[in-house]
Protein backbone atom coordinates (compact mmCIF):
# COMPACT_ATOMS: atom_id res chain seq x y z
CA UNK A 1 0.00 0.00 0.00
CA UNK A 2 1.02 3.62 -0.36
CA UNK A 3 3.67 4.46 2.16
CA UNK A 4 2.26 7.91 2.79
CA UNK A 5 -1.20 6.77 3.60
CA UNK A 6 -1.24 7.28 7.33
CA UNK A 7 -1.10 10.81 8.68
CA UNK A 8 -3.04 9.76 11.76
CA UNK A 9 -2.03 6.12 11.78
CA UNK A 10 -4.27 3.56 13.43
CA UNK A 11 -4.45 1.76 16.73
CA UNK A 12 -2.51 -1.43 17.38
CA UNK A 13 -2.69 -2.92 20.86
CA UNK A 14 0.26 -2.15 23.10
CA UNK A 15 1.08 -1.94 26.80
CA UNK A 16 2.97 1.36 27.11
CA UNK A 17 1.72 3.97 29.56
CA UNK A 18 -0.08 6.03 26.89
CA UNK A 19 -2.10 2.94 26.02
CA UNK A 20 -3.27 2.65 29.62
CA UNK A 21 -3.99 6.36 30.17
CA UNK A 22 -7.73 7.22 30.26
CA UNK A 23 -8.76 8.68 26.94
CA UNK A 24 -9.91 11.96 28.52
CA UNK A 25 -6.44 12.58 29.93
CA UNK A 26 -4.96 11.79 26.55
CA UNK A 27 -7.16 14.43 24.93
CA UNK A 28 -5.97 16.96 27.52
CA UNK A 29 -2.35 15.94 27.00
CA UNK A 30 -2.82 16.43 23.27
CA UNK A 31 -4.20 19.94 23.82
CA UNK A 32 -1.40 20.72 26.26
CA UNK A 33 1.10 19.93 23.50
CA UNK A 34 -0.71 21.63 20.61
CA UNK A 35 -1.95 24.92 22.09
CA UNK A 36 1.17 26.47 23.75
CA UNK A 37 3.38 26.52 20.63
CA UNK A 38 0.51 27.97 18.60
CA UNK A 39 0.00 30.69 21.19
CA UNK A 40 3.67 31.45 21.90
CA UNK A 41 5.13 31.36 18.36
CA UNK A 42 8.63 30.96 19.81
CA UNK A 43 11.13 28.42 18.62
CA UNK A 44 11.91 27.31 22.17
CA UNK A 45 8.27 26.44 22.94
CA UNK A 46 7.87 24.59 19.65
CA UNK A 47 11.07 22.65 20.27
CA UNK A 48 10.08 21.82 23.85
CA UNK A 49 6.65 20.50 22.80
CA UNK A 50 8.15 18.58 19.89
CA UNK A 51 10.65 16.88 22.17
CA UNK A 52 7.99 16.22 24.81
CA UNK A 53 5.52 14.70 22.32
CA UNK A 54 8.17 12.47 20.81
CA UNK A 55 9.30 11.43 24.28
CA UNK A 56 5.74 10.48 25.22
CA UNK A 57 5.44 8.33 22.11
CA UNK A 58 8.84 6.68 22.47
CA UNK A 59 8.45 5.91 26.18
CA UNK A 60 5.13 4.20 25.37
CA UNK A 61 6.84 1.60 23.25
CA UNK A 62 6.13 3.25 19.88
CA UNK A 63 9.44 3.25 18.05
CA UNK A 64 10.66 6.30 16.15
CA UNK A 65 9.91 4.81 12.74
CA UNK A 66 6.26 4.25 13.58
CA UNK A 67 5.91 7.61 15.33
CA UNK A 68 7.25 9.52 12.32
CA UNK A 69 5.63 7.48 9.54
CA UNK A 70 3.46 10.35 8.35
CA UNK A 71 3.73 9.69 4.63
CA UNK A 72 5.52 11.65 1.95
CA UNK A 73 2.68 14.09 1.56
CA UNK A 74 2.82 15.34 5.14
CA UNK A 75 6.63 15.52 5.04
CA UNK A 76 6.61 17.46 1.79
CA UNK A 77 4.09 19.93 3.21
CA UNK A 78 6.38 20.45 6.21
CA UNK A 79 9.41 20.87 3.97
CA UNK A 80 7.58 23.30 1.67
CA UNK A 81 6.54 25.39 4.66
CA UNK A 82 10.13 25.51 5.91
CA UNK A 83 11.56 26.41 2.50
CA UNK A 84 8.93 29.10 1.97
CA UNK A 85 9.83 30.83 5.22
CA UNK A 86 13.54 30.46 4.54
CA UNK A 87 13.03 32.07 1.14
CA UNK A 88 11.25 35.00 2.78
CA UNK A 89 14.21 35.32 5.15
CA UNK A 90 12.28 34.31 8.24
CA UNK A 91 14.45 31.56 9.75
CA UNK A 92 12.47 31.44 13.00
CA UNK A 93 9.20 30.90 11.11
CA UNK A 94 10.97 28.31 9.00
CA UNK A 95 11.25 26.25 12.16
CA UNK A 96 8.16 27.35 14.12
CA UNK A 97 5.48 27.02 11.39
CA UNK A 98 6.24 23.50 10.21
CA UNK A 99 7.30 22.62 13.77
CA UNK A 100 3.88 23.54 15.15
CA UNK A 101 2.16 21.53 12.44
CA UNK A 102 4.38 18.55 13.22
CA UNK A 103 3.60 18.88 16.94
CA UNK A 104 -0.13 18.90 16.14
CA UNK A 105 0.13 15.77 13.99
CA UNK A 106 2.31 13.91 16.48
CA UNK A 107 0.08 14.93 19.40
CA UNK A 108 -2.95 13.66 17.48
CA UNK A 109 -1.06 10.41 16.88
CA UNK A 110 -0.57 10.05 20.65
CA UNK A 111 -4.33 9.48 20.63
CA UNK A 112 -4.88 7.58 17.41
CA UNK A 113 -1.95 5.18 17.75
CA UNK A 114 -2.78 4.20 21.31
CA UNK A 115 -6.59 4.31 21.44
CA UNK A 116 -9.13 2.17 19.56
CA UNK A 117 -11.40 4.41 17.46
CA UNK A 118 -14.56 3.23 19.28
CA UNK A 119 -13.05 4.51 22.52
CA UNK A 120 -12.26 7.87 20.90
CA UNK A 121 -15.83 8.02 19.64
CA UNK A 122 -17.34 7.25 23.05
CA UNK A 123 -15.19 9.94 24.65
CA UNK A 124 -16.31 12.46 22.04
CA UNK A 125 -19.95 11.54 22.55
CA UNK A 126 -19.52 12.00 26.28
CA UNK A 127 -17.90 15.42 25.90
CA UNK A 128 -20.40 16.69 23.34
CA UNK A 129 -23.56 15.40 24.98
CA UNK A 130 -24.10 18.60 27.07
CA UNK A 131 -24.31 20.50 23.76
CA UNK A 132 -27.43 18.60 22.71
CA UNK A 133 -29.75 21.54 23.58
CA UNK A 134 -27.75 23.60 21.08
CA UNK A 135 -28.61 21.10 18.35
CA UNK A 136 -25.30 19.20 18.39
CA UNK A 137 -25.86 15.51 17.68
CA UNK A 138 -22.92 13.96 19.54
CA UNK A 139 -23.34 10.55 17.89
CA UNK A 140 -23.16 12.03 14.44
CA UNK A 141 -20.08 14.10 15.26
CA UNK A 142 -18.32 11.03 16.67
CA UNK A 143 -19.27 8.96 13.62
CA UNK A 144 -18.07 11.75 11.31
CA UNK A 145 -14.70 11.84 13.09
CA UNK A 146 -14.34 8.06 12.80
CA UNK A 147 -15.23 8.25 9.11
CA UNK A 148 -12.66 10.98 8.62
CA UNK A 149 -9.94 8.89 10.25
CA UNK A 150 -10.80 5.94 8.03
CA UNK A 151 -11.10 8.03 4.83
CA UNK A 152 -7.84 10.01 4.95
CA UNK A 153 -5.65 7.09 3.77
CA UNK A 154 -8.05 6.35 0.93
CA UNK A 155 -8.24 9.94 -0.26
CA UNK A 156 -4.47 10.43 -0.08
CA UNK A 157 -4.14 7.19 -2.02
CA UNK A 158 -6.29 8.59 -4.83
CA UNK A 159 -4.01 11.64 -5.04
CA UNK A 160 -1.10 9.27 -5.49
CA UNK A 161 -2.94 7.26 -8.14
CA UNK A 162 -3.89 10.41 -10.05
CA UNK A 163 -0.29 11.59 -9.98
CA UNK A 164 0.90 8.25 -11.36
CA UNK A 165 -1.74 8.30 -14.09
CA UNK A 166 -0.80 11.85 -15.07
CA UNK A 167 2.88 10.95 -15.07
CA UNK A 168 2.22 7.90 -17.23
CA UNK A 169 0.85 10.28 -19.85
CA UNK A 170 3.64 12.81 -19.36
CA UNK A 171 1.19 15.39 -18.04
CA UNK A 172 2.48 15.67 -14.53
CA UNK A 173 2.39 19.42 -14.32
CA UNK A 174 -1.25 19.90 -15.25
CA UNK A 175 -3.11 20.45 -11.95
CA UNK A 176 -6.55 19.98 -13.53
CA UNK A 177 -5.59 16.48 -14.60
CA UNK A 178 -4.54 15.77 -11.06
CA UNK A 179 -7.48 17.33 -9.28
CA UNK A 180 -10.37 16.16 -11.45
CA UNK A 181 -10.00 12.43 -10.82
CA UNK A 182 -9.27 13.09 -7.16
CA UNK A 183 -12.46 15.11 -6.68
CA UNK A 184 -14.63 12.74 -8.71
CA UNK A 185 -13.15 9.83 -6.77
CA UNK A 186 -13.83 11.54 -3.45
CA UNK A 187 -17.45 12.24 -4.33
CA UNK A 188 -18.06 8.67 -5.48
CA UNK A 189 -16.36 7.32 -2.35
CA UNK A 190 -18.48 9.57 -0.13
CA UNK A 191 -21.62 8.40 -1.89
CA UNK A 192 -20.74 4.73 -1.47
CA UNK A 193 -19.78 5.27 2.17
CA UNK A 194 -23.09 7.02 2.85
CA UNK A 195 -24.95 4.16 1.26
CA UNK A 196 -23.02 1.65 3.35
CA UNK A 197 -23.94 3.53 6.53
CA UNK A 198 -27.61 3.42 5.60
CA UNK A 199 -27.42 -0.25 4.61
CA UNK A 200 -25.85 -1.13 7.95
CA UNK A 201 -28.40 0.89 9.87
CA UNK A 202 -25.63 3.00 11.41
CA UNK A 203 -26.86 6.41 12.47
CA UNK A 204 -30.39 5.07 12.86
CA UNK A 205 -29.67 3.94 16.39
CA UNK A 206 -27.67 5.74 19.06
CA UNK A 207 -23.99 4.84 19.25
CA UNK A 208 -23.43 4.89 22.97
CA UNK A 209 -24.63 2.34 25.50
Amino acid at each position, binding site marked *: *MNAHANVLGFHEPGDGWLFRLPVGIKYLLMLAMVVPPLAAVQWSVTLACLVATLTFLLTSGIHLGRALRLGWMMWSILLTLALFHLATLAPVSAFVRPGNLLVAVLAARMLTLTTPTPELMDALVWVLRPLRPLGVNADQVALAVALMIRSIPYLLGTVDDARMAARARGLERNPALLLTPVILGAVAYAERSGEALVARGIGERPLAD
Partner: protein
Amino acid sequence: MIHLDGVSVVVPASRRGDADRTLLADVTLTLTEHRIGIIGANGSGKSTLLRLLNGLRLPTAGTVTSGGFDTASQGRQVRTHVGFIFTDPLAQLVMSTPIEDVELSLRSRIKGRENRTREALRLLEERGLGKLAHQSIHDLSGGERQLVALTSVLAVEPKIIVADEPTTLLDLRNRLALRDTFARLPQQLIFSTHDMDVASDATRVLVVDGGRIVADGDPAAAIRFYERSMAMTP
Protein backbone atom coordinates in the same frame (compact mmCIF):
# COMPACT_ATOMS: atom_id res chain seq x y z
CA MET B 1 -39.13 -14.15 3.22
CA ILE B 2 -39.30 -11.17 0.90
CA HIS B 3 -42.34 -10.17 -1.08
CA LEU B 4 -42.52 -7.63 -3.92
CA ASP B 5 -45.98 -6.61 -5.01
CA GLY B 6 -46.43 -4.67 -8.25
CA VAL B 7 -43.12 -2.89 -7.77
CA SER B 8 -41.89 -0.25 -10.19
CA VAL B 9 -38.98 2.13 -9.93
CA VAL B 10 -39.29 5.14 -12.22
CA VAL B 11 -36.88 8.08 -12.11
CA PRO B 12 -37.56 11.49 -13.66
CA ALA B 13 -35.77 12.20 -16.92
CA SER B 14 -32.44 13.94 -16.50
CA ARG B 15 -33.39 16.46 -19.21
CA ARG B 16 -36.72 18.18 -19.48
CA GLY B 17 -38.84 16.88 -22.31
CA ASP B 18 -37.35 13.39 -22.19
CA ALA B 19 -39.49 10.50 -21.05
CA ASP B 20 -39.08 9.29 -17.45
CA ARG B 21 -36.75 6.30 -17.03
CA THR B 22 -38.19 3.01 -15.86
CA LEU B 23 -35.51 1.10 -13.97
CA LEU B 24 -37.86 -1.65 -12.84
CA ALA B 25 -41.32 -2.32 -14.26
CA ASP B 26 -44.18 -3.95 -12.37
CA VAL B 27 -42.30 -6.73 -10.62
CA THR B 28 -44.22 -9.15 -8.41
CA LEU B 29 -42.11 -11.81 -6.69
CA THR B 30 -42.09 -13.96 -3.60
CA LEU B 31 -38.57 -14.88 -2.55
CA THR B 32 -38.51 -17.84 -0.20
CA GLU B 33 -35.76 -20.12 -1.59
CA HIS B 34 -32.59 -20.54 0.46
CA ARG B 35 -30.28 -19.44 -2.38
CA ILE B 36 -31.50 -17.08 -5.09
CA GLY B 37 -29.26 -15.81 -7.91
CA ILE B 38 -29.95 -12.80 -10.10
CA ILE B 39 -28.25 -12.50 -13.48
CA GLY B 40 -28.52 -10.03 -16.33
CA ALA B 41 -26.48 -7.65 -18.46
CA ASN B 42 -24.88 -4.47 -17.09
CA GLY B 43 -27.57 -1.87 -16.54
CA SER B 44 -30.41 -4.39 -16.64
CA GLY B 45 -31.61 -3.51 -13.13
CA LYS B 46 -30.00 -6.11 -10.84
CA SER B 47 -28.67 -3.59 -8.33
CA THR B 48 -31.91 -1.65 -8.35
CA LEU B 49 -33.82 -4.84 -7.55
CA LEU B 50 -31.43 -5.85 -4.76
CA ARG B 51 -31.43 -2.38 -3.20
CA LEU B 52 -35.22 -2.54 -2.92
CA LEU B 53 -34.94 -5.60 -0.71
CA ASN B 54 -33.47 -3.80 2.30
CA GLY B 55 -34.96 -0.38 1.66
CA LEU B 56 -31.78 1.23 0.30
CA ARG B 57 -34.06 2.18 -2.56
CA LEU B 58 -37.80 2.65 -2.30
CA PRO B 59 -40.29 1.63 -4.98
CA THR B 60 -42.11 4.45 -6.75
CA ALA B 61 -45.11 2.12 -7.07
CA GLY B 62 -46.05 -1.09 -5.26
CA THR B 63 -44.70 -2.42 -1.97
CA VAL B 64 -41.73 -4.45 -0.75
CA THR B 65 -41.98 -6.38 2.51
CA SER B 66 -38.95 -8.10 4.03
CA GLY B 67 -39.59 -10.44 6.94
CA GLY B 68 -43.03 -8.88 7.32
CA PHE B 69 -41.68 -5.32 7.53
CA ASP B 70 -42.56 -2.75 4.92
CA THR B 71 -39.34 -1.27 3.51
CA ALA B 72 -40.91 2.18 3.08
CA SER B 73 -42.37 2.64 6.56
CA GLN B 74 -40.27 0.27 8.70
CA GLY B 75 -36.82 0.81 7.22
CA ARG B 76 -34.99 0.38 10.50
CA GLN B 77 -36.44 -3.06 11.24
CA VAL B 78 -35.89 -4.11 7.63
CA ARG B 79 -32.19 -3.24 7.79
CA THR B 80 -31.73 -5.27 10.95
CA HIS B 81 -33.50 -8.17 9.27
CA VAL B 82 -31.73 -7.93 5.91
CA GLY B 83 -27.94 -7.47 5.69
CA PHE B 84 -26.46 -6.01 2.50
CA ILE B 85 -23.05 -6.83 0.97
CA PHE B 86 -21.70 -4.40 -1.63
CA THR B 87 -19.41 -5.13 -4.55
CA ASP B 88 -16.67 -2.89 -3.12
CA PRO B 89 -15.99 -3.91 0.48
CA LEU B 90 -13.73 -0.92 1.10
CA ALA B 91 -16.71 1.41 0.86
CA GLN B 92 -18.67 -0.85 3.16
CA LEU B 93 -16.12 -0.84 5.96
CA VAL B 94 -16.74 2.25 8.05
CA MET B 95 -13.94 2.02 10.59
CA SER B 96 -10.15 1.90 10.22
CA THR B 97 -9.55 -1.69 11.32
CA PRO B 98 -11.58 -4.94 11.10
CA ILE B 99 -12.11 -5.24 14.84
CA GLU B 100 -13.41 -1.68 15.10
CA ASP B 101 -15.73 -2.24 12.18
CA VAL B 102 -17.26 -5.38 13.65
CA GLU B 103 -17.56 -3.61 17.02
CA LEU B 104 -19.58 -0.87 15.38
CA SER B 105 -22.10 -3.46 14.19
CA LEU B 106 -22.26 -4.99 17.66
CA ARG B 107 -23.28 -1.70 19.27
CA SER B 108 -26.91 -2.45 18.50
CA ARG B 109 -27.04 -5.65 20.53
CA ILE B 110 -24.12 -5.84 22.99
CA LYS B 111 -23.68 -3.49 25.92
CA GLY B 112 -20.23 -2.49 27.14
CA ARG B 113 -17.16 -1.83 25.05
CA GLU B 114 -15.10 -4.66 26.49
CA ASN B 115 -17.81 -7.21 25.76
CA ARG B 116 -18.06 -5.90 22.23
CA THR B 117 -14.30 -6.07 21.67
CA ARG B 118 -14.22 -9.66 22.89
CA GLU B 119 -17.18 -10.70 20.76
CA ALA B 120 -15.77 -8.88 17.69
CA LEU B 121 -12.49 -10.75 18.03
CA ARG B 122 -14.33 -14.04 18.43
CA LEU B 123 -16.38 -13.43 15.27
CA LEU B 124 -13.26 -12.49 13.29
CA GLU B 125 -11.41 -15.58 14.54
CA GLU B 126 -14.36 -17.71 13.53
CA ARG B 127 -13.77 -16.61 9.93
CA GLY B 128 -9.99 -17.04 10.19
CA LEU B 129 -9.44 -13.28 10.34
CA GLY B 130 -8.15 -13.05 13.91
CA LYS B 131 -4.62 -12.12 12.82
CA LEU B 132 -5.93 -9.21 10.76
CA ALA B 133 -8.08 -7.74 13.53
CA HIS B 134 -5.85 -4.70 14.11
CA GLN B 135 -4.58 -4.14 10.57
CA SER B 136 -5.63 -1.12 8.55
CA ILE B 137 -8.53 -2.02 6.24
CA HIS B 138 -6.42 -0.44 3.49
CA ASP B 139 -3.74 -3.10 3.97
CA LEU B 140 -6.08 -6.08 3.47
CA SER B 141 -6.50 -7.98 0.22
CA GLY B 142 -9.81 -7.74 -1.63
CA GLY B 143 -10.86 -11.17 -0.42
CA GLU B 144 -10.00 -10.39 3.19
CA ARG B 145 -11.94 -7.13 3.01
CA GLN B 146 -14.98 -8.91 1.63
CA LEU B 147 -14.81 -11.45 4.48
CA VAL B 148 -14.51 -8.62 7.05
CA ALA B 149 -17.50 -6.88 5.46
CA LEU B 150 -19.43 -10.15 5.69
CA THR B 151 -18.43 -10.57 9.36
CA SER B 152 -19.63 -7.04 10.14
CA VAL B 153 -22.93 -7.61 8.39
CA LEU B 154 -23.47 -10.99 10.09
CA ALA B 155 -22.66 -9.44 13.49
CA VAL B 156 -26.08 -7.75 13.42
CA GLU B 157 -27.56 -11.28 13.11
CA PRO B 158 -29.71 -10.68 10.05
CA LYS B 159 -32.04 -13.40 8.79
CA ILE B 160 -31.44 -12.61 5.12
CA ILE B 161 -28.25 -11.61 3.28
CA VAL B 162 -28.45 -9.63 0.05
CA ALA B 163 -25.19 -9.41 -1.91
CA ASP B 164 -24.65 -7.27 -5.01
CA GLU B 165 -21.96 -8.89 -7.19
CA PRO B 166 -19.90 -9.87 -4.15
CA THR B 167 -17.26 -11.76 -6.16
CA THR B 168 -16.80 -9.35 -9.08
CA LEU B 169 -13.71 -7.64 -7.66
CA LEU B 170 -12.07 -10.84 -6.39
CA ASP B 171 -9.42 -13.05 -7.96
CA LEU B 172 -10.15 -16.71 -8.59
CA ARG B 173 -8.86 -18.02 -5.27
CA ASN B 174 -10.80 -15.47 -3.21
CA ARG B 175 -13.86 -16.02 -5.36
CA LEU B 176 -13.78 -19.72 -4.59
CA ALA B 177 -13.20 -19.00 -0.89
CA LEU B 178 -16.16 -16.60 -0.71
CA ARG B 179 -18.39 -19.06 -2.56
CA ASP B 180 -17.45 -21.65 0.00
CA THR B 181 -18.21 -19.27 2.88
CA PHE B 182 -21.54 -18.32 1.33
CA ALA B 183 -22.45 -21.97 0.85
CA ARG B 184 -22.14 -22.54 4.59
CA LEU B 185 -24.25 -19.56 5.74
CA PRO B 186 -27.48 -20.60 7.43
CA GLN B 187 -29.19 -17.37 6.29
CA GLN B 188 -31.30 -16.97 3.18
CA LEU B 189 -29.00 -15.51 0.51
CA ILE B 190 -30.02 -13.41 -2.47
CA PHE B 191 -27.18 -12.34 -4.76
CA SER B 192 -26.45 -10.95 -8.20
CA THR B 193 -23.52 -12.14 -10.25
CA HIS B 194 -21.90 -12.23 -13.69
CA ASP B 195 -20.28 -15.55 -12.87
CA MET B 196 -22.45 -18.40 -14.13
CA ASP B 197 -20.67 -20.86 -11.83
CA VAL B 198 -21.67 -18.76 -8.86
CA ALA B 199 -25.20 -18.44 -10.26
CA SER B 200 -25.50 -22.20 -10.50
CA ASP B 201 -24.96 -22.44 -6.71
CA ALA B 202 -28.49 -21.06 -6.35
CA THR B 203 -31.68 -23.05 -6.08
CA ARG B 204 -33.56 -20.44 -8.08
CA VAL B 205 -32.24 -17.98 -10.67
CA LEU B 206 -33.93 -14.80 -11.92
CA VAL B 207 -32.90 -13.22 -15.21
CA VAL B 208 -33.35 -9.44 -15.40
CA ASP B 209 -33.48 -7.55 -18.68
CA GLY B 210 -34.47 -3.92 -19.14
CA GLY B 211 -36.02 -3.73 -15.68
CA ARG B 212 -38.17 -6.84 -16.11
CA ILE B 213 -37.87 -10.41 -14.90
CA VAL B 214 -37.61 -12.33 -18.18
CA ALA B 215 -36.86 -15.77 -16.76
CA ASP B 216 -37.30 -17.30 -13.33
CA GLY B 217 -36.75 -20.79 -12.05
CA ASP B 218 -34.36 -23.70 -12.22
CA PRO B 219 -30.74 -22.40 -12.46
CA ALA B 220 -29.70 -24.52 -15.45
CA ALA B 221 -32.72 -23.43 -17.49
CA ALA B 222 -32.46 -19.77 -16.49
CA ILE B 223 -28.73 -19.62 -17.25
CA ARG B 224 -29.28 -21.27 -20.63
CA PHE B 225 -32.02 -18.73 -21.40
CA TYR B 226 -29.70 -15.86 -20.45
CA GLU B 227 -26.74 -17.14 -22.44
CA ARG B 228 -28.88 -17.65 -25.51
CA SER B 229 -30.42 -14.17 -25.27
CA MET B 230 -26.95 -12.61 -24.93
CA ALA B 231 -25.67 -14.51 -27.98
CA MET B 232 -28.55 -13.21 -30.09
CA THR B 233 -28.13 -9.56 -29.12
CA PRO B 234 -24.37 -9.04 -28.82
